[in-house]
């Protein structure tokens, strides 16, 4: 239950509010998750007036403000095409109007196509206070512990990286049962991220080249069984989807 609502227009004010532990105070992006009925009493800090909604190319990276909506990112000319496809798969048109990039990344579970695709790109997050730069991959498993009192202000993704995304679902717009996002740097560095299972997307490989990516994917999902699919299925299909992603680069 939301007990307080704040809409600061200065970052410092927002951080002061977020530093409170009583009441528990959390940042509010679009509210797609936070605003749903809950027993937990929270105060929310609406970020919409902080000016964190800019998308700016900076050299070989794209800086994305925390409150950029998924639709705005989808509409941006510099956004990688495959990331756009993952955004479309992530949410419907209505939801994309309000869901924010940072909110989507923090609320993501393993079935989030957007989080999987972004994670493959090894994004760097800027956290306040302290202007700290952290990798999304490191933050993701620890977000519950590390984020209270803190705020993501920017997400930076590389622009010189090839990205591929493949998924399997019951219908074209259903959430993935298995998905693979693979990013390949000009240096050959290759990151493989799997999704469709668990509490968050899983980094299956971060290597100097694509070699062994499909095997890494197969191993990473060897225990990934739940009510939606068996581990045997996910493991096999993860390898195949990863292979397809790699093939896309080569073709």
């Amino acid at each position: 239950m939301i007990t307080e609502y704040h809409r600061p227009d200065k970052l410092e004010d927002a951080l002061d509010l977020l530093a409170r532990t009583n009441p528990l105070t959390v940042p509010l992006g679009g509210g797609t998750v936070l605003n749903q009925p809950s027993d937990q009493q929270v105060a929310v800090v609406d970020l919409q007036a902080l000016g964190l909604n800019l998308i700016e190319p900076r050299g070989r990276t794209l800086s994305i403000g925390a409150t950029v909506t998924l639709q705005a990112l989808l509409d941006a000319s510099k956004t990688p095409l495959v990331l756009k496809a993952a955004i479309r798969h992530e949410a419907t048109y209505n939801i994309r109007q309000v869901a924010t990039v940072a909110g989507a990344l923090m609320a993501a579970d393993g079935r989030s196509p957007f989080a999987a695709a972004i994670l493959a790109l090894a994004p760097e997050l800027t956290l306040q206070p302290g202007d700290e730069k952290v990798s999304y991959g490191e933050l993701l498993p620890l977000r519950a512990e590390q984020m209270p009192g803190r705020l993501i202000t920017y997400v930076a993704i590389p622009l010189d990286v090839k990205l591929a995304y493949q998924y399997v679902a019951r219908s074209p717009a259903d959430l993935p049962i298995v998905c693979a996002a693979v990013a390949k740097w000009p240096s050959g560095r290759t990151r493989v991220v799997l999704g469709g299972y668990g509490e968050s997307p899983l980094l299956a490989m971060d290597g100097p080249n694509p070699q062994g990516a499909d095997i890494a994917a197969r191993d990473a999902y060897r225990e990934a069984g739940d009510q939606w699919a068996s581990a045997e299925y996910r493991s096999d299909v993860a390898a195949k989807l990863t292979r397809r992603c790699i093939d896309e680069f080569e073709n």
Partner: protein
Amino acid sequence: MNIELLVNGIEHQVEAAPGNTLFKVLRSLGYYGVKFGAEDGETGADTVLLDGKPINADFYLAAQAEGHKIATIEALGEHPQQGWKQTQGLHPLQQAFVVTGAIQCGYCTPGQILASIELLERNPNPSDAEVRDALSGVLCRCTGYKKPVQAVLRAAAVMRGEDVEPIDGSARPIPAPPGWIPPEGDTGGPADGFDAGFATQTQVMPQIKVTPKTEELQRVGKPEPKVDAIKLVQGKPAFAADLEMRGLLHAKVLHSPHAHALIKSIDASKARTLPGVAAVLTHEDIPRVAYSTAGQSDPIPGPLDCFSLDNKVRFVGDRVAFVAADTPEIAEQALKLIEVEYELLEPILDVRQSMQEGAPVIHDQPDYVHFADSDPSRNLAAEIRIDIGDLDKGFAEADHIFEAEYVVPKVQQAHIEPHVVVTYWDEDDRLVIRTSTQVPFHVRRMIAPILGLPVKRIRVIKPRIGGGFGGKQEMLIEDVAAHLTIATKRPVICEYTREEEFIASRSRHPMRIRMKTGIKSDGTITANEMYALSDTGANGAHALTVTGNTGHKSMALYVGDGEYRESPNIRFYADIVYTNNPPCGAYRGYGVPQGYWPLERHMEKITQELALDPLEFRLKNALRAGELHPFSTAWSEGREPRPETISTCGLEECVQQGKAAIGWDQKHGNEQWRNSLRSTQHAIRNTQHATRTPYSVLRRGIGVALVMQGTAIPYLDMGAASIKLNDDGSFNLLIGATDLGTGSDTVLAQMAAEVLGVLVNDIIVYSSDTDFTPFDVGAYASSTTYISGAAVVDAAEKVAERIKIRAARMLNERLNVETFERSNVKLIDGKAVGVGGEFVTLGDVALNALHHEDQEQIMAVGSYVSPVAPPPFAAQFAEVTVDTETGQVVVDKLVMAVDSGVIVNPITASGQIEGGMAQALGYAVCEEMVYDEKGQAREKDFRDYHIFMAHEMPELETIFVETFEPSHPFGVKAVAEIPLDGVAPAVGNAVLDAVGVNIDANPVTPEKVWRALKDK
């Protein structure tokens, strides 16, 4: 906190809690066009525009919206005729939604229109795919999205200044020439004559092969706009929750966390003292009355095994207590203060364990009321044993015996408007129940003993219904609100949340079905046997009748050929057993889709094994006109069966039309076609959502299923109507039939208008109110157009008779002759016309009757019950693409050629077919309800329970093959349910065609296909 909201250009100062959603605040301000669909905004019924962008008000905070411009549907156009006041009329989008038939229940319509407005403002000339993306955030369970997309494209053309072709009475479908066959591979474009000279074509008319008997009709057979379209397109407060009442309390239900438990003690004292709580009711507070929730005629053909509240819970989600409070939030808080001590009992969650020796008994209460063979000591809710002919002889004469087991899942109706009811005492101390129900008259009769009220002190009002699909053929929560109104004397609203819809409403019965079929080498079926083990869940509502129809409608289709056609050998046995899963109930198709998955998958296997042509084999053995419905002498929904002959059957023509439309002869079994995937729709959609799948791993396939359904329940379903002439020659048509979005109000008005010789908008339709409208069993069993329609015609003919008598007298007096008689006066175009063209208007007749001479109220009541239930027939085709590495199946195209008799309204009827195919598509590939080992549901929202969205739909094509059913004045048969029957098996058969594997349990999920391919 104080919030300033700018809504439709009007500033509002609102005092709201920080967590109040924009939805809640807008509704409190009277903007009823924004609808509740789900707490997470997944339905989009809650769509509003925020600074011009569509967002979901269900989860967006009112506080977040401060400083932004909010627009709701109320900001758009209005009714074009408002007396002396000039108005702009409807917005072009609203107008397009009206004329294209894009509106069915209308609950999601405001959301679809608002999303479309935003699209057209940024893109005046969108593509089909762009429209679908814009609509992706608004779920529609009724339409299949085809007509809403066409509406947006049409509106875009109008807004660009283009002319668009009319869709009105002049646009009657072209009668098919003899031997008419659509072009091979036809893509479902408009019928001939609809595309000339217009840059933008509106493709909403189905192809129809018209029966010659209807060519003279003026109103029947025309694509008339729905009579309720103008109010729905404006988002008017037409639904059950759309009202304000002083002192309204909000009801909430405490649901069981356990699948099977006794309530040892329950203490509500803390909840009762919570400020704002008006009442808390437990099983200790209200009378214990056994009843069934099934909305069916008296006597209900099933056990009485429900109680409003009981000291035992039988599924996760079962009722434990009711609370009424000033706000929903207080009511929720009170639920948490109710202390319940449970004694856990062993649950039965696998249907195969229910009747095993030593299994826990789910209904051990002494006041259980039996029906027929119910035996709660064995967890048996109902039993069916039907033998037709001599099965053993049939099997003995067979050259081949095929046996297999199939599984069909539990699935949800998923109407976008949840169950919702408002109850209050009126000034005469009569209890008024305003409820979203398909069965208002049954609700009144059934709820009376539960409340201790006589029927005459209850009035049930059915406003518009935001979808039902059988889920509202159930008295599900009316008693909750009513008990609380009795307890508090105050009005109470009870509205289910989306999670409650999933855990505590009703669903389609899951079944395990065994088939055994005897075949001669020439493909003649000699015997056919089906056994169904049906999971009714914790209660037996609809247990007997749903599962009875599983056999009755599917196993009747294939009688065999030659001597077997004269005397088929068919067995249908079923055990319908209790489990501790949530109860099942009625769901569009009513057991029949469960029958056609095994039957048609089984038939396909037989054709494969014996190398028979799938279509020839089916038609060789299928029921034909002039033959006895084989089940008609054996079973009739728990009542006395009576023989029934099939008068009309267009099945063979359906096969011919359908196979031509989908290109069956070119594709089926064609290895080159299977492997020749290039730029198909599959690839396009796949690209839109993600990235390309290599074509080398994709295989295409095509499949078919033939199906039949029923039209009403013979000798039981009764509908009635009254028609009254008004001063101006218009008519009030009062019907008990309940339009749940199907368009039945409209087609009934068309029939009345046809008989009375007036325009459809001269018929003012009102339904349903138990105080004012005649009785009708309600909207189920595909009965309304047929049964209620015949009642309307009966009433209209009586009224027409009175009009003609008076008109003849008026003409004789006016012309000073004696030549006019009732028999030579016709009602045409609002006039009573004599043989020589002399006429008086119906307005003249009305004034004469009401004011001038020998005054009388020209009015009549008609009613109808049918001795037959003429089946509609259909051929359903599916084209799929299968990923051979992952098992993913994408359905590319669905075609349905259907004989539903005469089509009264081609747009509403094809809307029924398209929406039905979309629902059935979910049954085919993605919808199922799964429970863990404790009976906890996996699916509690639309994120997990995926229903098809606008941007992922395959191409849909509808073809009507008309026959003239002689038992109905206009020759109609049912439309609404049959599209649910054949899509899933057609998809399963298409997968077999594509990759050679059999999937015996639907939905056809990727892992099932992958596993089958692996085991191949």
